[in-house]
Structure formats: structure tokens, C-alpha cells
């Protein structure tokens, strides 16, 4: 699981193929190099370079005071990040796994998200909380959760999740530069996926990305479900159906403008997410699309989500995770026959 060693990090800008893990490593390195207030810390992020090697080489290159290990205590990591931000730093903290971020939840909800509002803007919280999340890697219990809804539900937090190395780089740089706190959800399953990265490319927080053009139906997905949606679109194309794929990528704030325009253009929509569907980000997207696109819709907006069960054990996760077939089934259910008989 080493992937960041081969990256050139001396040149101002780089264009090349790299894994998402390497792109995140590169974004952290560039941010540390450019801004003396940026510090990276968490569990095992120093000498080891993180359990996913995302922080590989940072402590060595920038020193212990810029990238360091903490005691094994997530609330401690988050609470000290709040104090550092109060005193002018820009902490980027790593929560080792989705479920292991939960001990820090009080600090996130009660202080990270509220401090700026509490102090009428006097104390902003430019903190980035990186969380490897989601399944698809054969992880045991507590290593595969999709916890985005908890964060997206909390006013004051920006919640992002990239699906490509380029977005991982550009969105993380934007997150670190943001004056507001950002929860940055990294899809573990895509850490080793490769793609072209141009480090001069910037991304705006709060924007969705059109991942594939299409005219018959819009599939709205994020994170590890974007490749699933693209696979479904490819299969659908071979069957003569043109599927548009939107990578939502900013779960909060949500890019209503892009999504609304997209769904109005196709008249059909399917929302795909790995998390349990009940009271989820997928539910929110579905509701927003209904509210804004009702007159344009040929069929109800469908959701394809994880089951409302605890995440599956490794040997059953392929039954749990939404796949292209489920997405295609949902697309097939969108009242195509009604249209044909009109």
C-alpha cells in the first residue's frame, strides 16, 4: 500500500497520472509548503505515513512540527484542532476510519461547526477533517461506514467527497484554503484508482461536476458510487439509452443549480449512494430534485442506496453495495413505456 513515493513534488505544477492517494498526498504537501499555518496531524500519520499511506513522507520532508502523530484519541485531535484554529493555525486532521471519527463527534458538532457563529465571526474554524470512508475494500466492522449524513446535517460544515484524483487534489486544496470547516470524505475504495491530475486546476467548493453527458436520464452520484454510475451509463449506452452522470462531490452545500438544470434537461433522475437510504444525503437530493424539477419529470425520482442495515461483513459486502445492475434496474423503472405509448 505505498503509492506516494514516486511523486515529484518540487516543481510548481504537475500534470500526470497518479492515484487518488497520491493526489491527496500531493495536495497536503503543496498546502504545507505554501502556508506556514497548515499543520497535519492524527494517528499514525507521522513515521508510518498513515494506515493508507496518505501522509507518506510529509513528516520527513516538512518536519515534526508540520506533520505529527498524536495520542490515540479522536476527540483530543479534534478539540486541539479547534484551539489551534482559535490561535491562527489551519489544522488538517486525519480520522483513521469513518467509525473511529465518532469519538470526535461532539467537538465537530458543538465547536468546529458552531464557533464562528457563536463568536459572530470573530473566531473562524479553518479546519479540514479528512476521513477515509465507505466500503468496498473488504474491511471488517467499523471500517466501512458511510457517515456523511451526520456531517451534512450539521449547519456550519462543508462536506466534500471526491471521486477522481483530480478532484481529490483540487477540492482538498480548496478545502484547506477555505475559512470554514470542511469534512473531506475520502472513498477508500478509490484510493488506488488512477487518473490524470493537473495541480494548476482549481475547484470551487459547493459545485457538482458533470461526469458524463447524456440526454435520457440523469444519474446523481458521489464518491465511490460515481464509477458505478459511469459503468451503468456505459452499459445503458450499449442498449441505446443515453445516461447523464453528475458527480455531486459537494454534499453540503449542494449545487442545486447544476443538478436542477441537468434533471430538467433529461426529465428523469436516479440518485445513487452507498450509505443507508433512510434520512440520508440521497433522500435530501431526491427531495430537492422533486421540489425543483417536478413539472419536468417523466417519472418519480428513484434512489439506489445501501440497505438500512449495519454495513455488511467483508464476505457479504458485494450483496450490500449498490452496483451497476441496481442502477440499471432503477433506470428501467422510470416509466419508459408510458412515454412510448404516448
Amino acid at each position, binding site marked *: 500500500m505505498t503509492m506516494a513515493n514516486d511523486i515529484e513534488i518540487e516543481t510548481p505544477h504537475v500534470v500526470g497520472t497518479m492515484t487518488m492517494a497520491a493526489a491527496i498526498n500531493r495536495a497536503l504537501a503543496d498546502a504545507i509548503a505554501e502556508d506556514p499555518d497548515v*499543520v497535519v496531524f492524527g494517528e499514525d500519520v507521522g513515521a508510518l505515513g498513515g494506515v493508507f499511506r496518505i501522509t507518506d513522507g510529509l513528516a520527513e520532508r516538512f518536519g515534526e*512540527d508540520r506533520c505529527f502523530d*498524536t*495520542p490515540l*484519541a479522536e*476527540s*483530543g485531535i*479534534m*478539540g*486541539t*484542532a*479547534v*484551539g*489551534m*484554529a*482559535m*490561535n*491562527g*493555525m489551519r*489544522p488538517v486532521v486525519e480520522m483513521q476510519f469513518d467509525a473511529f471519527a465518532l*469519538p470526535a463527534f*461532539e*467537538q465537530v458538532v*458543538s*465547536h468546529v461547526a*458552531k*464557533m*464562528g*457563529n*457563536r*463568536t*459572530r*465571526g*470573530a*473566531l*473562524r474554524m479553518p479546519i479540514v477533517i479528512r476521513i477515509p470512508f465507505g466500503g468496498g475494500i473488504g474491511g471488517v466492522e467499523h471500517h466501512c461506514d458511510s457517515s456523511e449524513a451526520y456531517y451534512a446535517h450539521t*449547519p*456550519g460544515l*462543508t462536506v466534500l467527497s471526491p471521486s477522481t484524483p483530480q478532484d481529490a487534489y483540487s477540492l482538498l486544496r480548496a478545502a484547506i484554503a*477555505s*475559512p*470554514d470547516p470542511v469534512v473531506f470524505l475520502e472513498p477508500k475504495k478509490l484510493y488506488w484508482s488512477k487518473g490524470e491530475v493537473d495541480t494548476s486546476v482549481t475547484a470551487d*467548493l*459547493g459545485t457538482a461536476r458533470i461526469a458524463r453527458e447524456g440526454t435520457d436520464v440523469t444519474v446523481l452520484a458521489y464518491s465511490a458510487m460515481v464509477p458505478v454510475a459511469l459503468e451503468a451509463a456505459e452499459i445503458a449506452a450499449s442498449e441505446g439509452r443515453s445516461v447523464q452522470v453528475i458527480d455531486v462531490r459537494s454534499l*453540503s*452545500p*449542494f449545487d*442545486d*443549480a447544476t443538478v436542477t438544470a441537468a434533471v430538467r434537461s433529461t426529465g428523469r433522475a436516479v440518485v445513487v449512494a452507498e450509505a443507508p437510504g433512510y434520512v440520508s444525503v440521497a433522500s435530501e437530493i431526491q427531495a430537492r430534485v422533486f421540489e425543483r424539477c417536478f413539472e419536468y419529470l417523466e417519472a418519480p425520482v428513484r434512489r439506489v442506496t445501501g440497505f438500512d442495515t449495519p454495513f455488511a461483513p467483508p464476505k457479504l459486502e458485494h450483496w450490500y453495495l449498490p452496483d451497476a445492475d441496481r442502477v440499471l434496474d432503477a433506470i428501467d423503472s422510470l416509466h419508459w413505456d408510458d412515454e412510448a405509448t404516448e
Partner: protein
Amino acid sequence: MQHEDLLPRDTPVALIDKDGATVADEQYALPDAETLQRAYRGLVEGRRINDQAYALVRQGRLAVYPSSHGQEACQVAASMVLGDHDWLFPTYRDSVAVISRGVRPADAMVLLKGDWHSGYDPAEHRVAPQSTPLATQLLHAVGFAQAAKHRGEDTVVLALCGDGSTSEGDFHEALNFAAVFHVPVVFFVQNNEFAISVPLSRQTAAPSLAHKAIGYGMPGQRVDGNDVAALLAVLGEAVDRARSGGGPSLVEAHTYRMQAHTNADDDTRYRDRDEVKAWADRDPLSRMQVFLRAQGLLDDAAQQTIADGAEVIAAALRDALNADSDLDPEDLFRFVTAERSPQLEEQWQLLRGEIERASLTDAGGHR
């Protein structure tokens, strides 16, 4: 430092006893006369603020007031031992300490009045915002000190909490982080015997709260929390240690919450009047008054001047809270984030419409 040096004393450090007599101590010196006179003025003002705020709750002018009546020595000492550039991280019961740092009394009451969640700019007086979750601010204090150390500044951070907070996980994590990173933080526990209704015996089985320090590898000390002279000496030493690179320490003050948790609490349900009365005999103000008079450091005229000064503060607090608040409902949206989302803009617009309609129908709004 030897392990034994991390342990607190068996009995709390005391320099002036409950009757106002000095107690000799080999380690801690009595602060100078001017410092003690200043501390006494702080005690009188703090008591007046506590009693005024308590009265304002009964008059409906404050939503709630967690009083530090009886704990004024801790409040005043916590503020006095800090330099201008040091930071205080208070709890919701530490309004007197906050005001002692220079925050206007009315600004310190904004949370409790219900106008906003905090009423002062933390950077102006180097006082973190008060808030109600327990022990979370201890970690903020540690992170703040880490940042100061990172930049090579000699800022010391004093973090307050109560006995109940020592049971929280964040208390443990804060002391552990502070010790591991060797940062300049003084953890100051006001052990007032109660967490709302639950007594100390249900919080800990440790010999004292200060004994927890050795578990983190930092020194702990116990002090009579109603003896402002001892508090100044012990906290002063802890601040000096932190500033000179000696790392964090834990100070436990033994004091007593003389009133109920807040006006919404009924303390007759969980503690005897005899116990409260016994602590009244150990009042932090009266012993200092006796001491200063015996030393010739306080006469009737000086006492009157101090009382008059406290009355001016109380009157200002009264006036500020009796005045109707000038609230802007649009503040709900103004500060949520630095960069505003389209969704919040949309909802803000909705509220603006409601404000406009309200102003048309009942001239000023009904909300």
C-alpha cells in the same frame, strides 16, 4: 522531576485560614499587600456581580445564571495570575473570572440573557467564549497553547473546569495531550462538591482530583479554594512553571457552590442545610476582610470605596440588562460560515420577507 514531586499534598495549601489568621507555609509565600488588597476588591466586586445576576434572573432579565457565589476567590485568582497576553478558557460558571479579565459585565451575560451565544470578542480580552458542554474547552486550551508554542510565543493558557468535568473523556484527553506535547497550560479544577446534584463521591474514587495529575506525568496540587492568597500563590507558581517551559500542571481548589446549580435547580433535594451553613463559615470574603483589617491594610473608608465601586458595576449590569435588547433576527444567517451557500441565501431571503411583514403588521415584530 521525581514521581513524588508530581503528587499533591495530603491537605490543601492554605495561607489564610477561615478566621483570617495566616498559616505558615514553607513552599508558598503570602502574596504582597498590594496584591492582596487588589484581590479583596475583586472578591467584593465578584460577589456583587453574582448577587446582582441572581436577582436579575428572578426579575426575568436573565434567562439563567450559574452563580459562582462562594467561589469568588477561585474566579479572581484565575484572572489575576494571568498576564495580558495569556488566555483564559472559562466554563459557564466563570462569568466573574471573565469579567475580571476586563470583559464588560453586560457582554459576559449575553449567553445567559439569551441575546446571542457569546457577547464578546475573545481576542480583545484573551478570553475564550463560554459555552455549556463540559470539558470540551480544555482541549481547545491545549490546542491554543500548542499553536503558541509552535510560533515560539510565551503565552500561558489557564483552563477552568469543575469537579464534574473531570469525569468527562475530554478531561482525560486534554491532560494527556498537554503532558505529551509539554505545552504551557494550567488546568484549574474548581471542586465545588457538586455536579448539579451529584456529589464528588459519585465522580471519583481517587484520593483527590489533583492526584490524577501524576497519571499524566504532570504535577498536581490542592489548594483551599476559599483562600485567595493561597490560590494566588499556587496558581502563580503553576503559571510561572508553564511560562518557563516546565509544562502543564493541575491545580484543584476545594471550594463550595453556595447556591443551587442555577435558578432552575432545587438544592434542598440533595444536600443538608447544615453542610451549606458550615461552608458559609469558610467564606472567602470575610476571612480576607478580617485579615486585611488586622494587618492594617483595610479601613472603613477603603471598605466603603470598594463597596461603592462594586455598586457601580452592579448598577451598570442592571441598567444594561433592564434595557431592551436590540436584536437583529438576520444575525441567524450572518455568521454561520464565512462563505455563504445559495441555500442559506435563499432561507435568509425568506426570513427577510417575514421580518418585513411583521414590521408592517405590528410595528416592530411579534417575535
